């Protein structure tokens, strides 16, 4: 077993894990943060995207021990419990950027990362290129792209990062 301490959604977490535990397993099974999904388990679909030190990564292809000493943010950490949704979540609701919803947590975490890197004014082309590592099996991309464009703009006027 390996001792790890990290920050998850702003809270310090200490745990003993088997080194082969994937970050996504640790989040879902140890911390019960089941908003992060496992889609393909082969780093292709992006349902498991979380932020590691502020950058989008695939948590199915990261070991929990590798996150020791680092900061993780999941979909649950975007907006505080009971508070209004994060502007990107709100935009997905407003523009119906989901069908079955399975890919949504990863889509939203990736979307926020895109805004951090590319700013608030995103063309459809940029969004589609940047979504390369997130698959929607319902093929609901049209509304996902519209949601991200709107969410990016809304984030400019929000305190939530």
């Amino acid at each position, binding site marked *: 077993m390996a001792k790890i301490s990290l920050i998850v959604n702003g809270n310090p977490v200490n745990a003993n894990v*088997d080194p082969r535990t994937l970050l996504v397993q640790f989040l879902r099974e140890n911390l019960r943060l089941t908003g992060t999904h496992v889609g393909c388990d082969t780093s292709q679909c*992006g349902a498991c995207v979380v932020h590691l030190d502020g950058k989008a990564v*695939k948590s199915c292809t990261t*070991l929990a021990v*590798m996150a020791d000493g680092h900061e993780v943010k999941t979909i649950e950490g975007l907006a505080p419990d009971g508070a209004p949704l994060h502007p990107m979540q709100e935009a997905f609701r407003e523009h119906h950027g989901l069908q079955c919803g399975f890919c949504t947590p990863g889509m939203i975490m*990736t979307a926020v990362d895109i805004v951090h*890197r590319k700013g608030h004014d995103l063309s459809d082309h940029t969004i589609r290129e940047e979504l390369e*590592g*997130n698959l929607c099996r319902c093929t609901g991309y049209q509304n996902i792209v519209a949601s991200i464009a709107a969410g990016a703009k809304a984030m400019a006027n929000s305190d939530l990062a």
Partner: protein
Amino acid sequence: MYEFKYHRPATVRQAANLLVKNEDAKVIAGGHTLLPVMKQRLASPPHLVDLSHIEGLDGIEMKGRSLVIGATAKHANVATSAVVGEAIPALAELAGMIGDPAVRHKGTIGGSLANNDPTADYPAAVLALGATIVTNKRRLKAEEYFQGLFTTALESDEIITKVMFPLPKKAAYIKFRNQASRYALVGVFVAKRPSDVRVAVTGAGSEGVFRVTSFEEALKKRFSPKVLDGLTVPAEGLNSDLHGSAEYRAHLISVLARRAVEAATGKA
């Protein structure tokens, strides 16, 4: 995934000692090749040595007339580095074409080179630019470093620390992606260097990355896409699989080489 013991050394020396002590240990940094392979139980190293926390191993800087990139520099950092963009824009573009954004936040140049996947992008750049691979033990020229499919000159306790790229006069990389995996079905890196021209091909060779000397000789006389008219690469020795036949890949090499020369000349 089978059980293993995880090590997080603070220095390259410590990492190398761990490799000496544990014969079947594997080095990990981004983990985007090794972890998927371990999940499939195609690899089951009893020890993992994590390089990602070694300070100063991910630097990007100009040293004299060379661009020096640390082994654990991530693809995203190479793609967006102003230093790389200024020195060798084709290399920054190549890094920005690997995988997807989340993969580029984790994958490293050293990992890509140590793995030497026959469809990886970096090997083409390293071979075409005539880069030097620096390890904890020695310096290896690109020509001696790549030794075939997933095979390199690295010894079992040898760790890549950095890669030194001499600056080309012009360079470009054109990649024809596999539509599903985004790996290179064929990728061609063309570099006009002060003394010669090099054309390196990834994705196509059954022995991994290779140079096309007939193209290089023609381009050395005149660096223009026109000189490649009528020049072809034999299909023998090229990969043939459900994604494309050897003949198709041979055809792509000529087409992409021409496009790469066009792109390189357009860039001044």
